[in-house]
């Protein structure tokens, strides 16, 4: 605890005070404070949407705070650009490290500030020698001249950290650095963090994994709904306390969940596994039920769903739909069987810009609206009109390009498209991610109506309030496996977080 007393006496390398940041419709951060001390690791903990990413972007000069001050070594300063933050010695290592695959390790480390010869040309000999020295400091035995693309993710992290050292970073932000690493690589990363600490760097460590927070952090700061709700020394807290701070919200949000009589099983999945993504997934889905799938980002939920609709192939597993065994090898077969998947990235995977509204709606239902291999436009129009009017779509004509609609109306077109296939099971992946609160409520109400109409809904979500507010049952996935099953009556935020993070039940 010697270190704790030293940090408390030390001045923070960087301190944020009373920072607020709003986006249209959302207050992302409200009067938060955060201090990062030299030679100390601060863990930033919070659920998805708690404001961690916004904070990182403010710290690295990508966003400007609406209010509040940033102090570097006690002096008030501003980071109007990403470059100014870098000059002040703040550097971030992202989940997907931002480096250049086609350049060499040394070039990646020194891009933008490479040593020059007297003629102004890049001094390759010095650059490679300096790179080797920096890599040695982070404990990486890498040849500076090899191309980055030939390295694994862990080595790329080391290169990113070496780059941070090359610009004399004093504050290193690590945003879920272990999310994509193997066990061995994670341990190497821990050692590296220890070394950076010994080097006097201030480290902000963002993670969902409590075991690693307690392994490497000295201090913690907890965010909830854009506010700082607690901070202190790791040695003075417990996993239970952190979980409580993370989720301890007032249940202010009301969800428009209708009471629906749950019917017979519609979909039975058993023994689903994939060589690298998930294993032993099995569950039953009943008529009129909303089944929530909760887990941390990267727990394998979307991967499993994509396998269920035939985009990727599982290595084993069986699906029973309405009592009959089904083999689903492609999205087309899933649609024919009555299972549709509304993917997470609706921009990229949703509406087809350039096609008129009605053609967007009927795209997965063309076999129904065509005869003898020819499309029947009148039937397409009728089908499109039917489903778009149910969703109250505002458009002058169904013949207009879907690209001329606003985002909300485009989303209605996408939903109409899936409903028009008359599915039995609808899988919604992060249905409210990135939309404002008003639209969220509309989506939730609509989801309830679907269930009431006899559909079975699978809702993949990383937001605890949404999972708790909407689900009849919840399955929690962690690292590709089912880590918990909960009935609505026994749901609690703490249970969900524990299951998702793999924390043992408190005694």
């Amino acid at each position: 605890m010697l270190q704790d007393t030293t940090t408390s006496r030390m001045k923070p390398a960087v301190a944020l005070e009373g920072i607020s940041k709003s986006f249209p419709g959302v207050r992302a951060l409200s009067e938060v404070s955060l201090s990062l001390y030299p030679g100390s690791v601060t863990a930033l903990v919070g659920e998805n949407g708690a404001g961690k990413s916004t904070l990182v972007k403010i710290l690295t000069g990508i966003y400007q705070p609406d209010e509040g001050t940033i102090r570097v070594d006690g002096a008030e300063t501003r980071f109007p650009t990403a470059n100014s933050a870098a000059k002040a010695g703040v550097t971030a290592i992202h989940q997907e490290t931002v480096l250049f695959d086609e350049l060499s390790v040394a070039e990646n480390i020194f891009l933008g500030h490479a040593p020059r010869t007297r003629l102004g040309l890049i001094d390759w000999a010095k650059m490679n020698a300096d790179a080797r020295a920096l890599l040695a400091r982070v404990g990486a035995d890498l040849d500076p001249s090899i191309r980055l693309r030939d390295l694994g993710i862990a080595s790329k992290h080391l290169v990113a950290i070496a780059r941070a050292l090359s610009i004399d970073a004093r504050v290193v932000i690590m945003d879920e650095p272990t999310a994509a690493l193997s066990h061995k690589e994670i341990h190497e990363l821990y050692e590296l963090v220890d070394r950076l600490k010994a080097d006097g760097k201030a480290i902000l460590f963002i993670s969902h994994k409590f075991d690693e927070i307690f392994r490497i952090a000295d201090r913690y700061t907890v965010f909830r709904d854009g506010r700082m709700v607690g901070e202190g020394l790791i040695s003075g807290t417990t996993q239970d306390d952190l979980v409580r701070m993370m989720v301890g919200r007032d249940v202010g949000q009301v969800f428009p969940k209708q009471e629906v009589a749950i019917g017979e099983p519609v979909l039975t999945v058993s023994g689903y596994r994939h060589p690298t993504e998930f294993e032993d997934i099995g569950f039953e889905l009943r008529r009129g039920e909303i089944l929530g799938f909760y887990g941390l980002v990267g727990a394998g939920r979307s991967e499993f769903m994509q396998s269920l609709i035939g985009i990727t192939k599982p290595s084993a597993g069986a699906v029973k739909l309405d009592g009959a065994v089904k083999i689903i090898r492609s999205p087309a077969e899933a649609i024919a069987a009555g299972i549709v998947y509304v993917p997470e990235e609706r921009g990229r995977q949703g509406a087809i810009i350039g096609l008129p509204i009605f053609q967007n709606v009927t795209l997965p239902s063309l076999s129904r609206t065509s005869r003898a291999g020819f499309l029947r436009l009148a039937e397409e129009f009728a089908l499109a009109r039917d489903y778009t009017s149910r969703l109250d779509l505002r458009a002058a004509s169904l013949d207009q390009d879907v690209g001329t609609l606003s985002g909300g109306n485009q989303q209605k077109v996408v939903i109409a498209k899936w409903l028009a296939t008359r599915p039995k099971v609808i899988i919604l992946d992060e249905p409210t991610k990135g939309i404002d609160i008003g639209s969220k409520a509309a989506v939730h109400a609509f989801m309830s109506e679907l269930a009431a109409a006899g559909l079975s809904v699978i809702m993949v979500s990383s937001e605890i309030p949404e999972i708790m507010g909407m689900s009849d049952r919840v399955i929690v996935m962690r690292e590709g496996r089912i880590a918990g099953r909960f009935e609505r009556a026994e749901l609690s935020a703490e249970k969900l977080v524990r299951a998702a993070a793999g924390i043992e039940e408190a005694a």
Partner: protein
Amino acid sequence: MKTLLKNREMLLVAAIVALVVLIATRFPGFVRPQNLANVYNDTSILIILALGQMAVILTRCIDLSMAASLALCGMVAAMLNAAVPGLPIPLVILVAMALGAVLGSVNGLLVWKLDIPPIVVTLGTLTIYRGLIFLISGGAWINAHQMSDAFKALPRGAVLGFPLLSWLSLVMIALMFVVMSRTPLGRAFFAVGGNPHAAVYTGIDVGRTRFFAYCLSGTLAGLSGYLWVSRYAVAYVDIAAGFELDIIAACVIGGVSIAGGIGSVAGTVLGALFLGVIKNALPVINISPFAQMAISGTVIIIAVAVNARAEKRKGRVILRKAEAH
């Protein structure tokens, strides 16, 4: 979008009319109906090829090997005719089209199964197909006297006063119109080019759709191979060399977006006609072949600039009141 597209097609019609009128002031004979019919006939092969290319470009791919496929199929048709003069011509055409389909499917398979970028695949097959012509012909020409009269006569045969070649291109336009607007495959071309990620989730196999687009372009190249060789009554290694660029230019001028997902049969036909008018008219008003090339190139860039502007103007609709139209 529909009105915009219609506008773009009307714009093209206006441009063609303006061009024809301009030429008529210098050379009145150009607008004689017989001459205009000749210009159309001259452009028929380009139209057929451009329709195949359009299908490929709609799916975010490109077919650089079309002219080479045309030459290879044309050579095979000519050699077949020279070897077995008695073989019925429709059968020769069928052989050329079938061979074209095979050549196209090679492109399609490489793009689909091996995931090689389309430009690389078709650049490779372009060279291979040209090489094959040399291999099978030994570099020799098949000249008019080696071809049967029926072989050479078919595209020239008149029906209702117009050559069969013109009629054939009209039939192809009609067929392609039906395919593009009234079949699931035509719809899939647009969907795959418009948003391949979304198309996957709606049950469309993106790779297979591209494969069919290449089969289509190959088949049309095969047909054009016979038409070209019989029309000009000669087959050799280098026929239609460089013509792939004219084909792509016709599509681009006709409003087919090189980024995929946007285009129409009408626009493509108009684009090909525009090029056809330029190529036929400029020599008669004594513009040098080099200036012709420069003019064609300028037209292509202007067309792309106009299309790019039209696509950008759509923007995002955020205002509620702007949504109505």
